[in-house]
């Protein structure tokens, strides 16, 4: 029962990380259009120069698996999502300071 809850927690945590990323992208002008897929949003964010590096892509890939598959997800994937979000936040803060 505890293991099951931990698995569900990992899924929910990855999705929560992605939601946080989506919100911060929206604040910077790359809001998700209703008909966008996550990859389309990622492309837009890259083209407008909001995101650089691989953090956003890594988090998007984790989100896809968490959101659309029933694969069991574990702590390492949850941690990877959290790391990607931290990295992204740091790089967004830098670009923000640059502007």
């Amino acid at each position, binding site marked *: 029962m505890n293991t099951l809850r931990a698995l569900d927690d990992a899924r929910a945590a990855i*999705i929560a990380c992605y939601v946080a990323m*989506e919100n911060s992208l929206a604040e910077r002008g790359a809001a998700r259009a209703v*008909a966008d897929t*996550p990859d389309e949003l990622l492309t837009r964010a890259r083209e407008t120069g909001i995101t650089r590096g691989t953090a956003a892509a890594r988090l998007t890939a984790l989100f896809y698996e968490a*959101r659309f*598959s*029933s694969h069991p997800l574990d702590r390492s994937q949850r941690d990877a999502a959290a790391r990607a979000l931290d990295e992204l936040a740091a790089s967004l803060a830098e670009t923000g300071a640059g502007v």
Partner: protein
Amino acid sequence: MTGDDVRAEDEGATVSPWRGAAPELIIAAVLVAVTAVAGYAMAGWAGLAVVAVATAAIAMVVLRALLPPLTPDREKKAREKPVTSPAGLLAMRKSLEHVEVSPDLLDYIVAIVTATRKDPQVQVGASPRGGLALVQLARGQAVLKQRDYVVPDDIKQVAVPALAHRVTLRPELWVRQVSSDDVVAKLLSAVPTPKTDPAARASGRDQAQAVTG
């Protein structure tokens, strides 16, 4: 020394167009020259006739020289190995059933199919079979991308080939050169993809249960 080299290269360059040419092309070139001389020498109607007949013959020779062989090369055929068997093909089709499609994505597919029926440019929208085709094609696309679950991108990528030919536009649009490909693509850019957080409502309910539990 260098001058000789340059000359040799020049010669090579002038000769090279003929090196790979089929013998028929060389014959054709000779025929052209002979025809020109003969036509000039005979002049008048006879000359014209010679040129006309020879031109047709040359066209035939050139065409045959340029056509690839009609019968496949036997050796090449022997080297082609079958990539699968009939049973393999059926197994591949069957394997699509193991590709996961989340309920949200089925809703998304239904929304796309429904949108084809409601669009004012469309006279007859896609049938339920269109939706089925879209599901199966999206699953195939997922397999090609080495996934065992479908994502919205798979659906978007195959929706035009899956649905456009199943849609009949209003007759007046034929004149305006609007294709059903365009119409389905337009719908795809408007139909909402599944929302980011699947638990937006569900989790509220779960939390309520957790509280009562």
